[in-house]
């Protein structure tokens, strides 16, 4: 049994330690907000936070992160939406939406390190998250908007 803490809740899972966190979340715990897109850290759809940092959960063997706090989008903020989520709604970023949870998790982690990013900063960090629908322009706008809101607080 491997012990995991996801969004503050402790779980015991009976899987091999090599299983990527993504599949533990999705198929063992029923937390499906993290998406399977590529399985090789090329698309970023599976992004969650481990120890407060964005991690591609498809490449994180569950045995190696036992004991570290894991956050999925459900645990991003208590009750109210995170400013990044609000910006995503205000600017109506999603089309199909499949990549967007990963985009948001990446953006939240990014803004914590770089609260006032330039377009170049955004391009550098967010280029690891694919969007097949092509919502990049709106993602850029939403990140700037979220950064502005977060600076007000």
């Amino acid at each position, binding site marked *: 049994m491997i012990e995991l803490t996801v969004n503050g809740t402790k779980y015991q899972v009976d*899987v*091999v330690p090599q*299983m*990527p966190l*993504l*599949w533990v979340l*999705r*198929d*063992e715990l*029923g937390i*499906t*907000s993290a*998406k*399977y*897109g*590529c*399985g*090789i850290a*090329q*698309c970023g*759809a599976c992004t969650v936070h481990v120890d407060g940092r964005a991690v591609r959960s498809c490449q994180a063997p569950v045995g190696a992160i036992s004991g570290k706090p894991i956050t*999925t*989008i*459900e645990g991003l903020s208590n009750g109210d*939406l995170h400013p990044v*989520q609000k910006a*995503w*709604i205000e600017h*109506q*970023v*999603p*089309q*199909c*939406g*499949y*990549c*967007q*949870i990963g985009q*948001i998790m990446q953006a939240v982690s990014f803004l914590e390190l770089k609260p006032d990013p330039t377009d170049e900063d*955004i*391009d*550098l960090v*967010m*280029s*690891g*998250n*694919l*969007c*097949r*629908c*092509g*919502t*990049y*322009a*709106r*993602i*850029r706008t939403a990140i700037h908007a979220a950064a502005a809101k977060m600076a007000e607080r």
Partner: protein
Amino acid sequence: MGALPDISRRAFLIGSTAVAGGVAFGSFVAQAEQVAAPAPAANPLAAGLGPNAVAFNPWVEIGPDKITLIAQHADIGQGVGSIQVVLIAEELDLDPGQFEIRFAGPSPAYFNTGFADEFAPFLAADHSEAAEAARAATLEYLRKTGLQMTGGSSTIPDTYEKLRMAGAVARETLKAAAAERIGMPVADLRTGSGQVILPDGTTIPYVHLAADAARIPPVTAVTLRDASRWRMVGRPMERLDIRPKVTGEMKFGIDLKLDGMVFASVKLNPNKGQPITAYDASRAVGMPGVKTVLKLTNGIAVIATNSWYAMKAAEAVDCVWAPSPYPAEQADHWKVLGASFAPEFLGKEWRKTGDIDAGLKTGTRVEAEYRAPYLAHAPLEPLNGIALVTERGMDVWLGHQSPQSVQQIAAAAAGLKPEQVTFHNQWTGGSFGHRLEFENVRVLAEIADQMRGTPVKLVFSREEDFLQDIPRQIAIARYRGSVADGKIVAADLQLASTAPLKGLLERMGTPSKDPDEQLKVGIWNVYYDIPNFRAASYEARGLSPCTTWRSVGASTAGFFTESFIDELIHAAGLDPLEARIAMCSVPNYRKVLETVGEMANWQGPLGNGKGRGVAFVESFGTPVAEIVEVTATARGIKIDKVWVAADVGKVVDPVNFENMVQGGIVWGLGHAVNCELTYADGAVQQTNYHHHEAMRMYQCPVIEVRGLENDRKVRGIGEPPVPPAAAALANAIFAATGQRIREMPFNKSIDFV
């Protein structure tokens, strides 16, 4: 169709020829009659209604405790899961949050009227009596066949009036029911926010009127409201699916769970459509989580306790595959295609005006060959599905653009009758044409049939999704033209391609002997005054199966034709934008070109390593003009900015419209720059996104969008922004560097930042 089909967003055409004032449709008729129902088709909601509930029509269901609006078109990211029900809610006086959204099951009641214009063999800009008569005849044909499909950028054309009408009928029927109950004239009643409102302000919620409304015939004599009274349609509003897609609450098909469900993944013959001949699963059976290994027609499936266990074990099964019927190596695909410019492969000469031979002998001759490769759809949600076979039949949960075909193909794969298959359509993580095909449907049904009584969730690995993707067509253009005295005198547009639409029709069980109608798009609908003009398509045989990919035929021919027109314009010594405006024979289309020129403040060559290119393509009835600006830097071409103007008659959902256009540009540019699929040993070599990347954030330009409303008809926008993008980029690179790029992907010829 695909792109995403989108089909969807993808194009979908049935071979059609005008015959004696009517329209005849190849061999589709005989097959389509199998799904035809007497007209008008029975309301498919009637069978599922609970007590005291009412279904006014196939789109509105009201019960004692909730209101459900039905979305007949599949949502593949293009936002139709939202706008369809908004069109209903507009007339029904419902507010967001007062109803649930459900996707329609298969029924001829949901036939797609939006295909009428596309199927009729007339140019979109042709509003002659003959053209309109053919469209009307096509509509009756569609009604008779009952073809329900999302694709061809047709959702808005199909539903714009029909769903507002559905809402108005429901509203007036609810008012009639209220009037009868309280003994008051209908004229004294109003509606608002899901309630009938009496003159004294008393309100009766719709849900309290459901039982009464069920006892009276629907009031069908209704008038649609004037646009000036709309609360939501045509105004910026929050797409109804935005919030759950930002909180993580949205359940896509891949996220569903049934009690007692097991997990499956597959390894299938990468020689598309071919069977498995032998396999050895001895390494797989003892792996963690594995329950069993099943043999399928074209591969194996591993059943496990978790998708990852299933994928890992599927990789460990050694399979022997039957070889491909198409050439094993890519170089031979190009050879076969290149040899297809011959009379025996002629699809059709679509258009011929003037004297092409004499025209080509006049002035300066320009000749060029263009190429476009196979491409994958690769929506981010890989193919998947859940199925359960019981004594009663099969239930299937997955996202698809062709519900009736899912029913038929799943039934055939499991030895059932189509009516024994219940299809539950799902929200999807993109399509671009992928979810018009059936690679997941067939194997899911085979697996579920072998696992009777146990629900099975199938998830394709990304690699299997790439390997099994029925790709975009490959095509070669051999174009000739001539210019004299500062004018284009002749253009002879000859195209050889695999046939995407015919392939899809065949796999749907409705093969057509007619020429592939999608191969004319981008060569026959050229609206420039060129006195000597010919457009013909040749259909290569024996190559990879192909299908509709966002914007279908126009995705390749739009690039070829608008690049070649640019070559002719330059040869004639003209300005690329001014010449197009001067040559454009359709006033509304000319306005689209003029608009994009104004947006970009086009003033000819820029210099300093910068270049601008323009392109104009009408596809699915929507004219789109684009200008791309690039800079030739030391690190390669940088795409700086794109301006887009499109005329859709009416911008129904403005925020989403802009998002769709921007996405179409990103789709068109990204794939043109760096994507191709190539075959080796019968299988595609590109199996994940690092091989087939398309655009990432750092390459994404600023994209400025303007929607025009001059067209007399309401048009779709899912696919039409795609075709001009590659040509405008190639034309911009020529302007910046003098290098003419005639082959996709462009990064084979020039570096990009």
